[in-house]
Structure formats: structure tokens, C-alpha cells
């Protein structure tokens, strides 16, 4: 089987453009069929491997139910057994660390708590292929957007065709643009009516790192390629990721770790079909979808539909870093995750709405916003005049502090303030 490296993607209209349209809608479940989902992947990495069991769900349900208390094991060459234990709900981790060995075959066996057993076909570990190069280039994509493309080159020494699936993990530095060394300090969050003292908010030095954070996300899309149909068993400029120049994640320093999984043809075809059924389609022709048969079947009921695949891959990975300023020198940074221009000035207290009297039961918008985690200290209001009298309260009354949305002053909203171990400046 040969696959051209082209994908048909056009979401809206071509030529009759505005006349035809694609619009999103809220899917409703017509008939629901419960099915076991097996997300099982072994690699040639020496580690505790993870297998996840869950149940399919109707559209209306937000999260999937985990499949609990199953017996999970992987059998190597029909003789070595690796047991998996449930460490979290539906998450099964191999008891021992092991790696999928070259030329060995592996079989997955699962017995669910209701006594049904499932077997996978025996899967052989493919040959490992190194990533030759991973690099970025400034590029304009098909939609005319300028940005950074991450490309990969790879070369196999074998003669047979190779099938690849890529995953990546990206980590980027986030710097809060309106970071301030001081934080609000709510001294008295009760009004006069409650404790006899008025509301009081002061300042204190920040207690944790809130300026520089790091965030890590994982790829979600299926990215595949193959060398069949190629003259040489090598890949050049295979696109891993495109990031728009206006995406805040590359504002400072960005790192991507690309994992190259060498797949078997069966696994490759399965993922390819899965991807075809879940990608944007042409308005005019649509792939005929249907149930995608994986490599796991039920011993008890051969007609039972099982979702997922037992995949064994040989993996290599490579990490690169880049700085925005190195790629786009002298250019302004991409816009921050949220708009940080608006300055907020919440009032320290409000009179009770119905009586307009200062009986102390009124609210404090400032303290409420601080406690809800909505704002961060930005500056002190020089025009603020302290008043506790209802008579003096008027339109010109100011809040004691200027504030910004939390994400503008605290990077922890968008990441973690703990620098990852691998991170190199």
C-alpha cells in the first residue's frame, strides 16, 4: 500500500465560497454504544509502561469512565509476562521497568472485572531509526500566516520502507508582563458591620515566583509519514509543528521535544484511518467513515467492538530550543495570552444596595476580586482618599489600588513556576 503525502483540507468553500458553508453544531447522541477503549503503547524505552482503559461515552457526557480493576498483562515472545497494576483509576502501570526488544513480539491480554477477556494480535517491535535533524525555519503557511515551522529530517539505514508517527512535547517560558514584587495583603476581610473594623487591604512582598514560569503541553493531532514510495529511505523537512508568529507561546524561549515512533504497517494504517475520519474534510467529498477495526478482539464475543490499538514502537527523540528574539530580531513580542491593557480599580467597600446606609453589611469588591484570584497588584492609587462615610461616597470615589488581571501579574496561571529539569537557558 502506498500513500501520497498529501492531505485534502478545505474547510469552507472554494470558489462558491460565501455560498456554501461549514458550521459547527452541538452533536447529540442518537444511539449510544458502550465500548471498551484500550490505549496501549509499548516502546523500546526502558521504563514502566502505561496502559489506559476507559469506556466510550455519549456526547453529552464530559469525561470518560475509567475501566477499573482489570487484569492487564503483556506477554513477550509468548513466554515473558509483564504484569500491570492499576495505579490510578483506569491507569495501569507495569510493575517492572522493561523495554520492547528489537525483533521480539508482544501480546496484550486484558481481563475486565466482569470477567470478559481481550487479546491483541502479536506485535513485533519495529527497527529503530534515528532523527537526523530537528530544526526551525521562518515560514508562511498555507493560510498566509507567518510563523515558525519545526521540521525534521530522518534517515534510515534499512532498505525496507519505514512508517513514522510523531508526538511532541513543547515547553515554553512565560513571563508575566505586569509582574510586581508586591502582592495584595487582605488584612481585614470583614466590614464594620461584622467585626466593628472597616475592610482593610495592604501590601506584602510576593512569596513565590510569579514572574517566570514554564508550561508544557503535548501534541494531540496524529502526525504520520512514511518512506514508502520514496527513492531513498529518508525524510527531509517533514513538518512537525507550525506556530504562528502571533502565538504567545514563542514569546521568549521555546523548546520542543519530538518523539519519532517507528510503527508497523498495521499500526500506521490504523492511525491513518483514524486521522482521516477525524480531520477537516473537503466540502465536496467525504471519506466513508465506519467502525475502525483495531488489533484487539474479545475472546468472549468476537463481534464486540473494541476501540483502540496495541502499538509497539521504537522511539527516538530530540529536543531543540529557540528564542523569539533570535528568529524575529527587533520585532515586537507576540501579544500576551490575554489583553493586559485594562487597569482595574476595585472599590474597597460599597454601601448596602437597598438602604444606602453604611451599616457595615456592604461588600468589598476589591477583597472579593483578590480572594477569587481575579486580580494582581499593579500600583497604588495616588488619588485615593480614605472614606468610610456614606455622605462622602460619590462618583469620584476611587479604589485604593490599581490592579491587573491575574495572568498579567502572575505567570502561574499559564504554567508552573518550577523550571523543568531539562531546561537550558
Amino acid at each position, binding site marked *: 500500500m502506498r500513500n501520497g503525502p498529501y492531505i485534502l483540507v478545505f474547510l469552507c468553500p472554494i470558489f462558491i465560497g460565501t455560498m456554501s458553508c461549514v458550521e459547527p453544531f452541538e452533536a447529540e447522541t442518537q444511539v449510544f454504544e458502550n465500548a471498551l477503549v484500550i490505549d496501549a503503547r509499548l516502546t523500546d524505552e526502558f521504563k514502566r509502561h502505561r496502559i489506559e482503559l*476507559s469506556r466510550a461515552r455519549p456526547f453529552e457526557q464530559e469525561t470518560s469512565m475509567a475501566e477499573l480493576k482489570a487484569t492487564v498483562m503483556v506477554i513477550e515472545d509468548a513466554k515473558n509476562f509483564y504484569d500491570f497494576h492499576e495505579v490510578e483509576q483506569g491507569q495501569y502501570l507495569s510493575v517492572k521497568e522493561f523495554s520492547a526488544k528489537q525483533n521480539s513480539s508482544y501480546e496484550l491480554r486484558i481481563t475486565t472485572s466482569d470477567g470478559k477477556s481481550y487479546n491483541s494480535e502479536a506485535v513485533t517491535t519495529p527497527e529503530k531509526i534515528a532523527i537526523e535533524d530537528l530544526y526551525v525555519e521562518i515560514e508562511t503557511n498555507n493560510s498566509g500566516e507567518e510563523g515558525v515551522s519545526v521540521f525534521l529530517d530522518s534517515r534510515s539505514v534499512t532498505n525496507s520502507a519505514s512508517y513514522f508517527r510523531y508526538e511532541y512535547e513543547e515547553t515554553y517560558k512565560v513571563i508575566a508582563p505586569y509582574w510586581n514584587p508586591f502582592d495584595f495583603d487582605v488584612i481585614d476581610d470583614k466590614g464594620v458591620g461584622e467585626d466593628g473594623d472597616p475592610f482593610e487591604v495592604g501590601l506584602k512582598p510576593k512569596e513565590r515566583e510569579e514572574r517566570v514560569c514554564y508550561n508544557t503541553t503535548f501534541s494531540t493531532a496524529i502526525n504520520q509519514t512514511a518512506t514508502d514510495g520514496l527513492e531513498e529511505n529518508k525524510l527531509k523537512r517533514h513538518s512537525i509543528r507550525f506556530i504562528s508568529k502571533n502565538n504567545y507561546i514563542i514569546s521568549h524561549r521555546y523548546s520542543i521535544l519530538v518523539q519519532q515512533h517507528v510503527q508497523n504497517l498495521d499500526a500506521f494504517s490504523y492511525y491513518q484511518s483514524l486521522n482521516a475520519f477525524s480531520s477537516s474534510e473537503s466540502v465536496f467529498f467525504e471519506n*466513508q467513515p465506519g467502525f*475502525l477495526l483495531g488489533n484487539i478482539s474479545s475472546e468472549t464475543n468476537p463481534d464486540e467492538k473494541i476501540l483502540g490499538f496495541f502499538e509497539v514502537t521504537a522511539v527516538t527523540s530530540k529536543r531543540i530550543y529557540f528564542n523569539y528574539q533570535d528568529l524575529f530580531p527587533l520585532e515586537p513580542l507576540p501579544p500576551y495570552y490575554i489583553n493586559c491593557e485594562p487597569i482595574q480599580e476595585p472599590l474597597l467597600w460599597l454601601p448596602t444596595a437597598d438602604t444606602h446606609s453604611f451599616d457595615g453589611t456592604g461588600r468589598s469588591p476589591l477583597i472579593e476580586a483578590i480572594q477569587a484570584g481575579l486580580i494582581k497588584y499593579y500600583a497604588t492609587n495616588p488619588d485615593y482618599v480614605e472614606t468610610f462615610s456614606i455622605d462622602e461616597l460619590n462618583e469620584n470615589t476611587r479604589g485604593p489600588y490599581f490592579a491587573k488581571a491575574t495572568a498579567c501579574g502572575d505567570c502561574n496561571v499559564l504554567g508552573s513556576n518550577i523550571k523543568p529539569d531539562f531546561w537550558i537557558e
Partner: protein
Amino acid sequence: MRNILFVFLLLFANFLLAQESSPKISLSYTESTIKDVLKNIEDSTDYKFYYVDEWLGDQKVSGSYQDADLTEVLEDLFQSTILNFYVLDNEKVILTQNNIIYDELPTGFFIKSNQEQIQVTEERDVGGSQNPVFVADERLPQQRNIQTVRIGKETLDGQKRRYTLSGYVRNAKTGNPIPDLSLIIRNRKIGTVTDENGFYEISVPLGENLFETKALGIESQQKRVLIYNDGQLDFNLNESIEQLDEVVVEADKTKNVEEEITGSTTIESEETKDIPMVLGERNILSVATQLPGITNAGEGASGINVRGGKTDQNLFLLDEGVVYNPTHFFGIFQALNPFATKGVDIYKGNVPAEYGGRLSSVFDITTIDGNTEKFSGEASIGPVTGNLMLEIPIVKDKSSLVVGGRGAYSDWILRSLDEESLSNSSASFYDVVANYTHKINENNQIKATGYYSDDSFSITSDSLFGYNNRMLSVNWNHKFNEKNSGALAVSNSKYAFDIGFDGQANNDFLLGYSVEETEAKLKFKYVMNDTHTFDYGVAAKLYNVNPGFIRPTGSESIISPFEVPEDRALEGAIYLSDNITLGDKVGLSAGIRYSYYTALGPSTQRIYADGQPRNQATLIGSSEFDDNETVETYGGPEFRVSGRYSFTPDFSIKAGFNSMYQYIHTLSNTTTVSPIDTWKLSDSNIRPQRSNQFSLGLFKNFKDDLYELSIEGYYKTAEDVLDFKTGAQLLLNENIEQEVLQGEGQAYGVEFLLRKNSGKLNGWLGYTYSRSLIKFASDFAEERINGGEFFPSNYDKPHDVSLVANYKFTTRYSASLNFSYQTGRPVTYPIGQYNFNNSEYVFYSNRNEFRIPDYYRLDIGINIEGNHRIKKFAHSFWNISVYNVLGRANPYSVFFVSEGGEVKAFKSSIFAIPIPSITYNFKF
């Protein structure tokens, strides 16, 4: 008005008796108009004249009178005109054109009611026999636009029964006399013929005469001629080009009822011009889908489904040559030049034995025969395409060339759209057609046709798709004698597509596919007697399929060139059919066709283990075949039998049985047809498709064939129809049989059609109830679909209503309306979602268990014909239409996308808003 006045006067005729002595007039005038003279008389006397200015004309008169009677003056004055006068009450003078005002009733007026009166009348002999010319406006509505001509002046004395009318008949354009033209006076049942100089003379009765001219190639003209006296009448007549068409229409009037075969329809291209279509593009194939039994999967779905059959089961023939994809732009436009296309005969029930090779239908499309008389043409300008067709006489009356070209200038529309994702998209298409007809002699005629259509579109900046059709055919019709005739048709067709990829990496390529076929067909007709008419013949066809190739493009590319080896096959057929007429009541058409198919080497055929699903694991070997070696043969008899019984001349019942073989199949893993679907020949692993159809119908014409009503039912079974495993890779797949499933098909339905072909309001109303089911059963799960049970096909739309109506306000203005309603087509809808590999996905179970919402659409159009002035260079035609007036966003498909780890549901519609368009056509 004049006639009413006349009648009014007539009623009082008895009171308007003879004139008393009148005043004398003295006057003289030279070179004055009659009007001035009358004015002069009015000024100098008490007389008052009543007349219409126009009657008097610009004629100059001279005269001199001394104490003359008014009568004398006026008689002289009106001598050279066709005016008569009547003097009322000695002061009022009423002028009349042609007519005389009688001051008494004619002889015999009250013959039955009052004998006495007659006596009185007879005594008053005013002299001469009086035969007044009465003309009442009792013309039928369609006669109202007939010109009325008045000849001569009525005289009171010397009236004759017959007068002599003479004149010349000339060709309006050339001015040449028209000899041998029949002049018929319909209401008198008399007539004459023009001599070689176009001169005629005929003795005609007094009064109203309805003249009609008739000659071959000359437009028939009618004139209402009121004869008052001898006179001359010349005719200037136009040549008529469409006279033959009119004859055809007449002959087909009862075809609905009388034809033996069921399920056949004819659509004339010209007829479809009034029907509103997307962006004003005339589309005979879309019009066909408005007829019962013919549907498509939706707007933007190329391919037509006939009576529950797959899209690859239709044979599109253009002048006997196959056209694989007769559509442009995903099926939205037809790839046929509407001006060069005469029409299409569609066979969806009983297919004549001469055709074969597709299970569901035959679309027999013919191009026009060019004008051998004079250079003429037709052109149109619409929002999408420009079209020009020329008819060029080569040898007068013998041969002619037709050349048509049509192209889309759509790229500008695309570019003008303010849609970022489209900035790199483009789409364009064109088609050209040419034919040459040559009438060698009475018995031999040759027609050669060439056709080419091309589409190209690109969606992303790095890929370009293109597909094209090519067809060449030569037809030689020969008449051996009165009873025997024959025809030889030789054709060659090719369909090809390619995808060019020009990215930024090292994998630029060109991928392509092509299918080519060459056919020779010899057919004969033998009219033995009134009872038997035989059609027989033989056909052979050679297929060459290039199932796919990929080539690197650019020096950088490391794509390795690859080609799936060529497939070749020979398809032959021999047929015989007899049309038997047994009296007026019974007609029978019995045909048999034996088709034979051979897959030819060189070829490698893979062998799979018996009783195992076909996949890489069960592949146990292969066998090699040399050049032209027989790889596999298939074949069998196909029966085409149908009969008619007429209860009355306009009411019949028909029944038929039809069986077919199909040796070439499309491979498609999309829900609707895509231009990159490939055609695959049957081989040792893929069997031909077969079908049987039973049909029964009642046909009735009403009101002198003004209305046609039919109800037809059918039941159809098919074997070895193709489908594919979920997620099949079809392009460049050497082992395609591992992806192919062959199963059963079942379709049945009832079609109702009410049609009105003429009159101010014409059109049709159709309703179809039909089902189309398929079944793929196997012992192995991977080769089963929906558990091996029957399930609805992608185009199973049980209820289908179409209304096409055209209303002619006048000969120039008409409005048309087009309405369709269909049950929503089946779709495969996910039955849940799940998490896998860090993302959400939906999962599908059984195919086609749900339906998208029902489809309905209303289109309206206004058609304005330019006026028919003879001298005008061209005859123009404006078409203003709005497609999808209701602006309904008919869902076309529903799909689910995993984006950013989440499932998103989308629905698409092709024409979601009303689409107005204006098209200008002209003929010259």
C-alpha cells in the same frame, strides 16, 4: 371599436332612411390633403365629418366644384382610397374604411321571424345584390396576433361574389421569390401555389379569408385577409430552421403511451433553458434529476443515481462515444455545451439491446446537426461561463460544422472573495465540442464528433488537481434499401486525472490515472413488415486502464517513480431485438444481448487462500499472464423484454424485464463521488456486476395528449456491487482486491409523473417512493458491513417530489419555477466518543443508520426573449434566476473533527443562501 360602431349603426339602419335634398357645395383645391379638404368643407357648410385621422393618409388631391352635391365631391375625393362615407341627418358625414354603411338590412335578414318585413325590404331595391361583409372579432386567442389585411374598397354596386387576389411571395432576408409555396385559405378550403417567380393569383370569396403559407424551410405565416375588392397582397416570409423540431414534437405526442419500453425519457436541451439552475448554467443532467427515479446524493455530489443504482452504473454516451465524467466542478455544472447538445434520451428501465455495460441506465446524448444553409450560432454570457457555438455550412445542403467552446472565468470570483483560506485556491474548467455532419447522398450520412473537457482546481498552494475527458466518434449511417439500414460507430474515449504536489520538502510529485476505451459498433435495422422490426448488431470494445502512477517532480524530489501495471480487457457483445406490433393494442419488444468479457494480459493476478478473508496474510501466490493472454473471462446473456397493451389509444399498460452486466467499476472510498475516483476492470479477483429489473407501468394521456400521466413501479436486484473496507486506500494500490467487497443490491420504487408539454403553463410534477439497499455479508468480520444485513445505500432517499413549471405570459416573457423535496440521505453518524492517545475521537458503528435533515429547495427564474424583428442581427434571450430562493442551508454532510484534542461537530451545505444570477444568450 370600429366593428362595434358598425353594429350599432346597423341596428338603427331602419331609421336612417334616404337623404333629403342637400345643400350645394362650391370649392376648389389643389395638392391638398384629404384632411384639409374635409376641414374646408366643414368650415363652409354645416357638415361635420367623423373619421380616424390615420385613414386619410398623406395623399394629395386636387379638384374644383361649383354647386356640387356633397356626394359627388366626396366620391371623387375618396376615389383612390378605400374609404366609404355615409351622410347622416344631412349634416353628419361618417367615414368608414372598406365597409359601406348600409341604410337597410340585407336580403333575408329576418327571413324566419318576419315575412312581412322581407317583402318591404325587397320592394326597396337600391340596386345590385348586396353581400355586406360582416366581421366579428371571434378569433381564438392564439389567432389574435395574426395580422389582418384589408384588400380593396367595398362598392355598393357591381359587387361580386369573388374577387381576384394576386401578389408575390418573397424571402424576407434575401428578397428572392419563393416558388412552390402553398397558399391555403383555411376557412374556405381553397388554395394555390406560387409559380417560379413567386407570383400567385387566386380567386377569393368576399369577406374574411384566413390565409396560410406553407413551404418546406419557410416559416409558416398566417394572415387574416378581408376581401372587399380585387387587390394585391405580397408576402415576405422568413426561413424556418426549427421546422423539423416541431415535427418531432408532434410525432412524440403519444410516445409516452405507445412506446413498448418502460422507463425512458427524453429531454431536449432547448427545453431546459427556462429552468432555473445554479448560477444560470443550463444543466440537462440536473434537469434529469428532477425526473422520477433519477437522483443524486446532493448538491455538489457528482454522479447520478438511477433507480437505486450506484453512480458508476450509468452509461453516458455522446454521439455513441462514452464520456466518463460529464460534469464540471464536483458535479455542479454539466460538462456539455448546452447549445451544441440537442438532447438526451434516458433509459432507466428497459434499455434497448444495442446498449450495455452499465447496470442502471443509459444517457444517450446527441449533439445538434449543424445548419447547412447559413452561418449561424449561439452565445451566452453568465456569471460563471462564457459560451460560443457556431454552425458553419461547408457544402450547402450537404455538410456543416458545429464548433462550441465554453469556459469558466471563475477564478476572478474566487479571488474576489474576502476569505483568507481561499487565497490560494483556484478552480477553472472548459469544454470544447465539434462535430461535422455530411450528407453524402440520400442513403449515406456521416457524423464525426470530438469532445474534450477539462477541470482543474487547487485547494492549497501546494497541490493542483485536474481531470479531463476526451471523446472522438465517427458515425456512418447507411440505408441499404427501404427495409434495411445500418450504422457503423467508431469511438475512442479517455478519462484521466492527476494531482500535482509542489511543496517545500523533497517530496514533490505528480500522481495520475487514466482509462481509455476504443469501441467499434455495427448496427442494423430491418423493417420486415408492419409487424416486425429487427435491430441487430455487434460491438467490441478495448479497455486500457492505467490504474495509477506517481512520478517525482523537480530535481530535489526523492519520490520514487511507481506505476501500477496497466489493465487491459476486451468487451464484446452481439444483440438482436424485435419490435413486434400486433394490431393497435399489443406491442412487444424482445431483445437479447450476449456480452462477453476477457481480461487480457500482460498481468499479474494474485491468488488468495480459499475460504479466508482477502488480505496480505492470505495472499498465497500469484500467476503471470503474457501479452494478450486471457486472464479471466466472464459473460452471459442479457434479456431486454417489454410489452405494451393499449386499452385505448391514449391508455396503456406496459411491463418489462431487463438484465445487464457491468465489467468496469469505480473505486471510491468517499460517501459521494469525487473526481479522483478510479475505474477498475474486472479481473480474476473482481467479478462483474449483474442486475435484473422488473418494471410495470400505466400510461395515460389526457385532453388530446396535452397531459401525460404515468405510474411506474420497479423491482431491481443486483449482484456483486462493489464497496470497500473501512478506511481503504485505493489510489496506487496494487492489491486493490484486498480492499474490495462485493455484495448484493436491492432497489424498488414507484414513480408518478404528470407532465404537460404545451400551453401557457407547462412542466411536470413528479413523485417517487423508492428504496435502495445493499448488503455485504461474509463469514469474516472484516468483510462484513452492518453485520451482513441489508442497509440503505448513501443515496437512498425514499420520498422525492419535484415540480418544474414554466408559465408564458407572452411570447417574450415567461417565468419558471423549480421545486424539489427529498428525504435526507443516510449518513454514518458516530455513536459515541472516546479518549485515545491524548485526544478525543468519535467512533462509528453501523453504516448509514441515520439521515441528515430533509432536503428542499425552490428556484425561480424569469426569461425574457428578445423581440422577433426580422432585421435584427441576433435573437436574444435573458435569463434571470434565483437558485434556492428560500435560502435553506440544506445539510450536505455531517462530519466530526478532532482538533486540539477535542471533538468538534460540523455540518456543511453547498448552497446555503439564495444565489441570483443573470445570463444573456443570443442566437444569430
